[in-house]
């Protein structure tokens, strides 16, 4: 009969093997008073039944995760959403059509078109210009383009491509678009299962308790709105696959840590490779795991399993990460990794080896000799370490940003981006979240998480310390950028799953112990059961998680507490014997053998009811969020009015017009938001797109939009643009149009071209487009292209988004002509007018015919040397 554990042994698990008692435990049922063999038989049947039920529940959770993401397919159609997914879709199309080798070598010249600015050469004669252009073509700098193989995270496209290929080979002819649309829901079901596996591992090493927590966590993750928002059907983006890879990698790491098997270490490295292929967020893993290893070493939990879990991962992981072209040598060189490689990852690698060596030496030497060894080593070691550290610091300090890239710097210092890099600051996903967004995105989990953290401390194992570290870091990062709430979601689900499972466990146990008391009326039995409940020793259970039940529960136990104490003291030895027996049986049950308090029956019943209601609120919120908030494909808009449902399909209308009415080689200029969609649907070359890697290029377009017509025409002409596309929401009240984004264009343009100044466009610090707007604003290209002929719609030019009448109502365009406006005026396309051959009126002023012809020829050369 194993002795009841005391707390000391629990904390020293790191250095010894885990106590054998947990392996002896066959089943976790309440110790009934029947004889052991019968209990065992009953137990194994129950266990089998529990296993089958568990599998069935997991299947249901997977189906739930899949179906809750299908709202947009039902409400709209099976279409790809937003902007980024269009790029991924185009890449996948290319992959399925041309195969993987061409995919790796693909140079996409439909994006980032850029013709070297002619005006820089017009000071020379014609011949020089010809030579310069020839040189450009030879050097292959004619289009900027984009090397797809080297700048794209291939995980998502390869996954969807292989699913498509597999299905086609099984003779299920799904189109590429269908596969792309439904990839995200499938992988969210996988992610829910991975969460089940991950939560099962750290919770208390028991099968049943672990399973319960796992199922709860999986169910929570299947529905959490933050994850739904990025993985809804149609949102074909990296995160859809990456979150699954993240959770699975963490699961394999924990599994390796628990079992110490090299097989799982290999799997862990491979899963990490899949994560690196999928998303830039892999740096989170490679920074979190070394942090955890360091934590384990520092808190004295070093074990050889830790070495097996970490060391192969570092070596294999670095190699595999370098294999992915996007990452390449960044895995070893730059400082996000630098911090990872040399300060975090590699340094922790070295520290781990040192610690391992120390333990090894300790094992084979006698204590006295060990002390001698330590003193010797420490003196030498300190000298060497300080030298190395000095060199490192000098190296890092010599680089300008100390080796960190812009995005990581903005993570550490949240105000960095808004000060220095307006493009990063302008993306709405990069803003810090507000408090309501926490409740919108993780809802009920927000206050279950602290309870889960407490539960993880009892007892603290390697795995649960990992989960605690995970949630702490993800909460910090989610506070910096809204987009990273996505990384917080799995951690929150795990913690809440553990908390809820513990709570249910405590309450149902209380009910189970007290139910017999209700049904037995005889006094002797009452005495028996009374003793039974009293012999439960009286330490308070810390797991009273939910705020709602905490208040009611706290007062009652304290009273009953005191009563039980008194009765116990009265009875004496007799009770002590029986108490020991019961205590043994009780301590068999949960390994954290914490003398658990039995809560009063009514309180437990009410608490369980309240927890169920809490869960119901969560489900209702999640379904609402999925249906209303996160299912908009944003390429098709709908609105409900008194005469039914209006569908605004203007974007696709515009792209289809472009596709059918322009030449294949025509270039289209628009703001970078619409780049991916234009290339994917209209199949035309764009100047800037959502990849936003060239700030100067974007600033050029921004400057053009902010300038008056003539300079804007000049800029666009030098970029060889034929059509300009503008999004305007004033007629229908669509508020994400270009006029609302215009100030960002000014800021970004002004960041590179100083003659664009933001205050020029603001009247008294306010951004206006009505009669009080500044003349710069009223004359800029964006204003003119948005509001050209707008008065013809209602006679007054009332802008529904800004809520005012426009300032300049009647004007003509001199350098652009309108070629297409969609049905609801949401997208407007303009064509650049070709320059006039003869300038009327002006030539009369010039008296000298020679200078006139020279000026004319000069002008021609400036504008159109090839015509």
């Amino acid at each position, binding site marked *: 009969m194993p002795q009841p554990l005391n707390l000391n042994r629990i904390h020293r698990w790191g250095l010894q093997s885990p106590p054998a008692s947990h392996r002896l435990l066959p089943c976790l049922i309440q110790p009934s008073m029947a004889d052991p063999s019968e209990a065992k038989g009953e137990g194994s049947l129950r266990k089998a039944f529990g296993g089958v039920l568990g599998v069935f529940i997991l299947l249901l959770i997977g189906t739930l995760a899949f179906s809750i993401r299908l709202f947009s397919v039902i409400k709209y159609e099976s279409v790809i959403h937003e902007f980024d997914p269009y790029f991924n879709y185009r890449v996948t199309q290319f992959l399925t059509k041309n195969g993987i080798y061409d995919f790796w070598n693909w140079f996409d010249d439909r994006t980032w078109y850029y013709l070297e600015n002619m005006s820089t050469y017009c000071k020379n004669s014609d011949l020089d210009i010809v030579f310069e252009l020839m040189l450009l073509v030879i050097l292959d700098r004619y289009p900027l383009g984009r090397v797809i193989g080297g700048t794209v995270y291939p995980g998502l496209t390869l996954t969807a491509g292989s699913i498509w290929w597999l299905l086609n080979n099984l003779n299920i002819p799904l189109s590429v678009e269908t596969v792309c649309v439904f990839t995200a829901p499938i992988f969210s079901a996988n992610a829910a299962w991975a969460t089940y596996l991950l939560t099962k591992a750290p919770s208390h090493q028991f099968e049943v308790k672990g399973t319960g927590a796992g199922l709860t966590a999986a169910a929570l993750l299947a529905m959490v709105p933050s994850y739904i928002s990025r993985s809804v059907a149609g949102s074909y983006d990296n995160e859809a696959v990456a979150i699954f890879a993240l959770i699975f990698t963490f699961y394999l790491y924990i599994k390796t840590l628990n079992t*110490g098997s090299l097989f799982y270490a290999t799997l862990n490295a491979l899963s990490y490779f899949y994560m690196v292929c999928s998303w830039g967020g892999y740096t989170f893993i490679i920074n979190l795991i070394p942090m955890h290893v360091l934590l384990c070493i520092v808190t004295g939990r070093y074990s050889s399993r830790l070495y097996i879990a970490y060391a192969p991962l570092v*070596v294999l992981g670095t*190699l595999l990460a370098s*294999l992915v072209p996007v990452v390449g040598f960044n895995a070893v060189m730059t400082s996000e990794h630098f911090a990872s490689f040399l300060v975090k990852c590699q340094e922790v690698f070295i520290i781990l080896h040192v610690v391992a060596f120390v333990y090894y030496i300790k094992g084979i*030497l006698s204590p006295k*000799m060990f002390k001698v060894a330590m003193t010797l080593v420490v003196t030498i070691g300190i000298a060497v370490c300080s030298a190395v550290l000095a060199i490192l610091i000098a190296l890092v300090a010599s680089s300008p940003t100390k080796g960190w890239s812009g995005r990581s710097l903005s993570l550490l210092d949240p105000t960095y981006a808004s000060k220095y890099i307006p493009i990063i600051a302008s993306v709405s996903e990069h803003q810090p979240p507000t408090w309501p967004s926490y409740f919108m995105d993780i809802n009920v989990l927000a206050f279950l998480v602290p309870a889960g953290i407490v539960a993880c401390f009892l007892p603290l194992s390697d795995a649960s310390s990992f989960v605690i570290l995970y949630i702490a870091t993800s909460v910090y990062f989610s506070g910096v950028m809204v987009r990273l709430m996505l990384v917080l979601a799995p951690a929150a689900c795990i913690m809440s799953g553990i908390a809820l499972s513990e709570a249910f466990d405590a309450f149902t146990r209380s009910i189970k112990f007290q139910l017999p008391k209700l049904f037995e009326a005889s006094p002797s039995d009452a005495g028996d059961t009374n003793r039974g409940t009293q012999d439960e020793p009286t330490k308070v259970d810390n797991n009273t998680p939910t705020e709602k039940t905490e208040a009611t529960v706290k007062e009652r136990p304290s009273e009953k507490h005191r009563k039980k104490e008194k009765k116990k003291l009265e009875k004496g030895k007799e009770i002590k014997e029986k108490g020991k027996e019961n205590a043994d049986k009780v301590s068999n049950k949960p390994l954290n053998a914490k003398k658990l308090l039995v809560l009063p029956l009514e309180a437990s019943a009410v608490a369980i009811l309240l927890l169920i209601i809490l869960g119901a609120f969560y489900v209702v919120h999640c379904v609402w969020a999925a249906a209303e908030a996160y299912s908009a494909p944003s390429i098709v808009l709908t609105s409900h009015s008194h005469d039914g449902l209006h569908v605004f399909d203007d974007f696709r209308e515009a792209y289809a017009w472009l596709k059918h009415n322009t030449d294949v080689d025509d270039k289209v200029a628009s703001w970078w938001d619409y780049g991916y969609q234009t290339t994917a649907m209209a199949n035309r070359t764009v100047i800037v797109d959502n990849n936003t890697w060239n700030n100067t290029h974007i600033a050029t377009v921004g400057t053009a939009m902010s300038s008056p017509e003539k300079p804007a025409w000049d800029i666009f002409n030098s970029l060889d643009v034929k059509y300009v596309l503008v999004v305007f929401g004033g007629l229908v009240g669509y508020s994400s149009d270009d006029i609302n984004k215009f100030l960002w264009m000014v800021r970004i343009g002004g960041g590179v071209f100083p003659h664009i100044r933001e205050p020029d466009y603001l009247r008294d610090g306010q951004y206006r487009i009505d009669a009080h707007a500044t003349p710069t604003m009223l004359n800029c290209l964006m204003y003119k292209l948005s509001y050209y002929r707008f008065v013809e719609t209602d006679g007054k030019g009332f802008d529904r988004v800004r809520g005012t009448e426009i300032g300049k109502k009647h004007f003509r365009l001199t350098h652009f002509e309108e070629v297409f406006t969609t049905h609801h005026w949401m997208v407007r396309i303009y064509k650049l007018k070709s320059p006039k051959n003869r300038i009327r009126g002006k030539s009369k002023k010039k008296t000298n015919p020679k200078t006139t012809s020279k000026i004319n020829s000069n002008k021609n050369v400036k504008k159109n040397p090839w015509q």
Partner: protein
Amino acid sequence: MAKSSSSDAQALIRSLRSAYAATPTKLKIIDLYVVYAITTAVIQIVYMGIVGSFPFNSFLSGILSCVGTAVLAVCLRIQVNKENKEFKDLSPERAFADFVLCNLVLHLVIMNFLG
């Protein structure tokens, strides 16, 4: 002080030697393999110092292959060592099979990365 520390050092080295001599031959072979791998890595680093690191991927894959096999050999040693209580029920054959599998993956990646 110096005398006592040097005699301490001598005593330390002696006790280390005697303790190490007691380890079984299997483990000593693995230790030898680790030392060999590390030496190869050191030779490569010296070579890079002389010649420069131009095909950086080759250099990286060479170094990491040496370090990788050393690490995996150490893991094997940990798992096979009879004094390790945690791995009591892990058969040495299983440990060796895991070691081979991990090495296979490692070398596959290295071959790919060598360029």
